[in-house]
């Protein structure tokens, strides 16, 4: 079970990070300072500092290199809106925008998001006062969810799908939203929400 497995490594990582961050400043590795090959890297070499923009804010975190962007958002930056379904790129629950393109944050190493501009579900209504993004509102209006677990990923993916212009027909929306699974089977209403928002955009 990937999730059980990851909980275990997350816990180990947390204690590990807590124990080692106190020790020393951790330089980000660059090409002129490569770690020794093949063998297990030293504890310091297993850590990196990552700086990125999330929902318009500059954020910095020290992470074990194994940390995914998804876990960085959820566990380190207090943004649990992005969900973990499979942790294997196979469900889309973890979809966020990186530099305005939709991606699966579970398969991105947090260290590789250095300097990236990330938008999560929490940032979608940003700059709109308290108003929801039109697609968020459309999900409510069309009843585009049941349990809601896949919804943040569906909405982020839907926003990108509309921006890409892949909304010419319901069939086209379905094909271009196929990277987001919904175990409750809310697909019909999800497509309606995207269709309507695309028309009004």
């Amino acid at each position, binding site marked *: 079970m*990937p999730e059980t*497995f*990851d909980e275990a*490594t997350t816990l180990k990582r947390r204690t590990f990070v807590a124990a080692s961050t106190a020790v020393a400043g951790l330089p980000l*590795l*660059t*090409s*002129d*300072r*490569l*770690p020794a*090959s*093949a*063998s*297990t*890297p*030293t504890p310091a*070499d*297993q850590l*990196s500092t990552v700086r990125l923009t999330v929902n318009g804010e500059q954020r910095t975190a020290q992470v*074990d*290199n*194994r940390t*995914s962007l998804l876990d960085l958002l959820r566990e380190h930056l207090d943004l649990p809106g992005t969900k973990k379904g499979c*942790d*294997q*790129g196979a469900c*889309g629950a973890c*979809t966020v925008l990186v530099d305005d*393109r*939709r*991606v*699966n944050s579970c*398969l*991105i*190493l947090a*260290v*590789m998001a*250095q300097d990236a501009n990330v938008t999560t579900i929490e940032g979608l209504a940003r700059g709109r006062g308290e108003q929801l993004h039109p697609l968020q509102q459309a999900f409510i209006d069309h009843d585009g969810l049941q349990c809601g677990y896949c919804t943040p990923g569906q909405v982020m*993916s839907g926003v*990108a*799908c509309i921006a*890409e212009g*892949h909304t010419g027909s319901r069939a086209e929306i*379905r*094909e*271009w*939203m*196929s*990277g*987001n*699974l919904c175990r409750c089977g809310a697909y019909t209403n999800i497509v309606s929400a995207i269709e309507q928002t695309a028309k009004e955009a």
Partner: protein
Amino acid sequence: MHPFAFSRVSTTAAALNAGAGNGRYIAGGTTLVDLMRETVERPAHVVDINALPYKDITVTRQGLRVGSLVRMSELAAHPEVRVTYPVLSQALELGASAQLRNMASIGGNIMQRPRCPYFRDVHSACNRRDPGSGCDARGGDNRMQAILGASTHCVATHPSDLAVALVALDAVVEVRGLDGPRSIPVQDFFLRPGDTPQKEHSLRSGELITSLTVPAGAHTRRSGYLKVRDRQSYEFALASAAVALDIRGGVVRGARVAVGGVATVPWRLPKVEEALVGRRPGRRTWTEAAALAAEGAVPLSENAFKVKLVERTVRRQLMTIGGQ
């Protein structure tokens, strides 16, 4: 996931030095991070190559050149590629999901590893992951496995759709090592499992894929990709066919046909092509040629259906591309 050191390189020389020191390149990470999490892959040092300058797509009269760091979505959407090499755009857009295609690179795509469930499960016997340990797939759940190009040591299909189209179009993989550049015809790039299933490609240790080239030809415009799978989208192929035809004066002058989802490597079908060239386009020609698609197939206990499926996939795609 096993612990690893991480570094970024911004020059080819730095990448090759890191590669020579056992550094593992990462581009989109959609294969590597996934398999590292399963502990199938355990690199001690991961090297981010995304700052290297292999990001251009150029279309000339000689052909197409694609940098290895171009994303699947970018190549698929390129306006000239869509018109001149539609089989490439279609193979790309019928693979993975919109999110994954934004992440995955072209170089990483042809380096992706098998999707065999036993390969992904470190508690199973798998010669590819652990040479000499056996193959749990052969006598296990083998419905998705290969009917062509397998050996007693491994029966896993090659998962890439793009690679099937590249094999049909005689693409060339341009690589660079510490000794300099070399060109590998894509047909020689992918290795059948034989006695050494762990050797999947002919890249030498530390070599970097810099670009892919596809020669121009009269056949590339009239081309396309058909993928048959268990669900309509976001699924690997049960059988797929890349077809490119040069039809002039009511005669097939040139034909390129390759299939995926059925073989251990992207599988070119020279006999099908021979049966097409010189013939008049039409149902009879397509049916007779497609009948040769599964020649040499050795089905396993649960995948005999792929024999007929691959013939019909080729036939239907010949009809779509060549007309009925």
